[in-house]
């Protein structure tokens, strides 16, 4: 009697979790913007045998954004998942993997991320500030003022903006704009930049030094601006993060847009 086909894999089986871990590491390793994502739930798994010790695995994953910027060297296990009240961002990913002789490799992945609905947040937390929309001028002004403020006080390298990670605006009580943005060290000192900022370019890949800034601008009842920037130091760039032409003129991106990322 032919052997009964193996029982379908359950989404919480060890094999499924191992495949999901490989998939999430691949997705974070090939993402160029925003933040690292952590696994929240394995929605579905389908195994298609190709022959002895050779399976194609289709995974449907539900991810949640963490607080670690994508360029941060912090291991994913140490990255805090953004809470629901902080206006969480969810990632939905379809990943195709191959398992040959027990070795898993990702063949393709397709992800879309989206912020949780504003109504859901306000239902649970009516006073929680929400993610700002992509082209909010207050956010862009705050980031520009914060980076200028930092560069005017630092004795280190002049920093250039890479992208805005996310931003939230609170209108009551008090008018507050909170932003997070990624920065890169340039080949100028802050002093040199005062003379000729146009000459200040991001350091070449073999010396690159990225970092991350948080800024809070209080507009009412009184004006105040707090900026904190941390540079990671030179990291050996992951092969998945090539420098592409125009790298130093990265567009300013604001989290809260629908980020879609196809990799294969």
């Amino acid at each position: 009697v032919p052997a009964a086909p193996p029982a379908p894999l359950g989404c919480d089986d060890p094999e499924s979790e191992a495949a999901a871990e490989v998939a999430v590491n691949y997705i974070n390793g090939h993402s160029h913007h925003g933040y690292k994502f952590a696994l929240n739930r394995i929605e579905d798994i389908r195994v298609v045998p190709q022959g002895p010790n050779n399976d194609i695995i289709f995974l449907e994953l539900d991810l949640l954004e963490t607080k670690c910027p994508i360029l941060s060297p912090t291991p994913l296990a140490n990255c805090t998942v953004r809470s629901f009240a902080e206006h969480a961002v969810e990632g939905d990913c379809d990943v195709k993997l191959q398992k040959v002789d027990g070795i898993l490799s990702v063949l393709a992945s397709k992800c879309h991320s989206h912020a949780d609905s504003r109504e859901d947040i306000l239902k649970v937390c009516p006073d929680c500030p929400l993610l700002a929309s992509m082209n909010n001028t207050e956010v862009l002004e705050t980031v520009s003022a914060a980076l200028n403020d930092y560069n005017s006080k630092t004795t280190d390298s002049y920093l250039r903006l890479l992208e805005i990670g996310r931003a939230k605006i609170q209108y009551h009580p008090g008018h507050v704009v909170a932003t997070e943005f990624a920065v890169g060290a340039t080949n100028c000192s802050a002093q040199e930049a005062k003379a000729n900022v146009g000459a200040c370019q991001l350091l070449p890949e073999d010396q690159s030094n990225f970092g991350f800034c948080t800024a809070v601008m209080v507009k009412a009842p009184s004006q105040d601006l707090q900026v904190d920037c941390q540079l990671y130091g030179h990291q050996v760039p992951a092969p998945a993060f090539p420098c592409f032409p125009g790298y130093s003129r990265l567009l300013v991106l604001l989290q809260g847009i629908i980020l879609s990322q196809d990799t294969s």
Partner: protein
Amino acid sequence: SVAKRAVAEAAQHDKVPRPVGFVPPPPPCPGRIRYFDI
């Protein structure tokens, strides 16, 4: 002659008797939620 039994009656007879306290296994997917569902 083949008499067609009422479906309900047939289903009743065909139902495999379940041991007392039988708990069906959880569906294999989707899996557990690690943080929260949005």
